[in-house]
């Protein structure tokens, strides 16, 4: 309850500050519209914004699901097999030297202007954080547990599945929390490079037509969606760890 009051208070302060800047600096509405105008636009354009928000949300959720699954599997493969580790780890690290942003035009070229290239962007941008935070956790199993399992004559596969993986779930969860924030970035960049739908596309369109209020309304929706995604993943991880 206190948290709700605090968040409401901070939001109110931010809105007041925003309006104050607009009023005091006498900014024209095509540079920075005030919150009142943005909320009005949000309401009058709600059908348009919802349509595009649903597209972006679909891209983000698909990218997040696939990227998380792929990251989960990769980390386990790396943890289970020293051979895979020595082979794949340098590739994985090197791949990080290529900015994912730079891949967006190529992905659009290969996968087209539709959903697929954006899902691929979201997936690529979260793959490394998920893989590396889960992998690190898999490699840091408390040694006492591993020794106990050895004395119990456990096989490496069962040690992995019954001890190392469950013990590393907090690491996987922190990778997912990062992913919740990164995945929308990937989808939006994908939309900027080439799309005919989605919040990123809508923002570019509004910008081109000097409808800054619509751009801010789309941005606001994107931020709220990202926060909601992060909060629900956070809650799901907590629940999972408790039960």
């Amino acid at each position, binding site marked *: 309850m206190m948290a709700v009051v605090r968040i409401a208070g901070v939001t109110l302060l931010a809105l007041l500050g925003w309006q104050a800047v607009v009023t005091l600096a006498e900014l024209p509405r095509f540079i920075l519209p005030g919150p009142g105008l943005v909320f009005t636009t949000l309401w009058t354009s709600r059908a348009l914004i919802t349509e595009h928000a649903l597209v972006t949300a679909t891209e983000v959720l698909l990218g997040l699901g696939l990227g998380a699954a792929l990251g989960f599997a990769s980390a386990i493969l790396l943890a289970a097999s020293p051979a895979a580790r020595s082979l794949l780890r340098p590739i994985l690290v090197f791949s990080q030297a290529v900015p994912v942003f730079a891949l967006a035009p190529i992905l659009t070229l290969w996968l087209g202007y539709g959903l697929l290239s954006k899902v691929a962007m979201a997936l690529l941008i979260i793959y490394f954080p998920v893989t590396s935070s889960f992998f690190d956790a898999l490699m840091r199993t408390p040694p*006492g*547990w591993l*020794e*106990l*399992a*050895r*004395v*119990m*004559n*456990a*096989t490496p596969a*069962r*040690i992995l599945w*019954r*001890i190392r993986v*469950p*013990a590393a*779930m907090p690491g996987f969860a922190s990778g997912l929390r990062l992913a919740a924030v990164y995945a929308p970035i990937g989808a939006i960049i994908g939309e900027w490079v080439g799309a005919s739908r989605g919040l990123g596309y809508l923002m570019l369109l509004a910008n081109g037509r000097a409808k800054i209020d619509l751009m801010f309304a789309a941005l606001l929706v994107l931020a709220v969606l990202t926060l909601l995604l992060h909060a629900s993943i956070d809650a799901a991880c907590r629940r999972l*760890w408790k039960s």
Partner: protein
Amino acid sequence: MTAAPALHLSGCATIDGAPIFGPVSVEVPRGRWTCLLGPSGVGKSTVLRLMAGLGDEVTLEGTVGAGDGAPLGARVALMAQSDLLLPWLDVTGNVTLGARLRGQPPQLDRARAVIEQVGLTGHAAKRPDALSGGQRQRVALARTLMEDRPVVLLDEPFSALDARSRALMQDLAATLLAGRTVLHVTHDAAEAARLGHNVLLMTQGGITSVPPPDGPTPRQFDAPETLEYQGRLMRLLMVAQ
């Protein structure tokens, strides 16, 4: 449980060339409770880990094994100072961990009986974080009993407990582990005086056997002969370098 074998270890141990202990000779008779008593850092845990088949980082110049010459591999259970309970499993899940790790069906009836033996009936469905330190160490004891191994290695399993819980755990362990070959590493003279059929004193100078008073264990903690023996162990610990 198969017949409990004797254990022995002799030689010197090093880690990356740095001497850990030795030369020493440790003899653990079969079916008895042997305490390995010594100050911290003298190498007690290393002795125990070598007997458990752990300690890959340790180089032992000497021999370690069972008196009957057969491998110790599947005949050892381990209980450490930290309870090593898995926080995502309940008490029953932790007690039956060994079977799950070996791909065997967990023996739930026996688990229930063992949980009752350690006095945790009614706690079987609880997670470790809902238990006290003493209760958690009881779960670790139940897990050890569940393994039903003829050799049990204890590395200061009671030293994190308060005095009363510790005494109760000592009684419980002495009763429930009777008949097995137990090697119990401890730095506590009072504990060795209560529990050991044999007490080996380990110091920088090597290992010597200090025969305890006759009579059944666990010994009364306030019996004059227990206290006298505890005092003697303490004096030996103090003069050792």
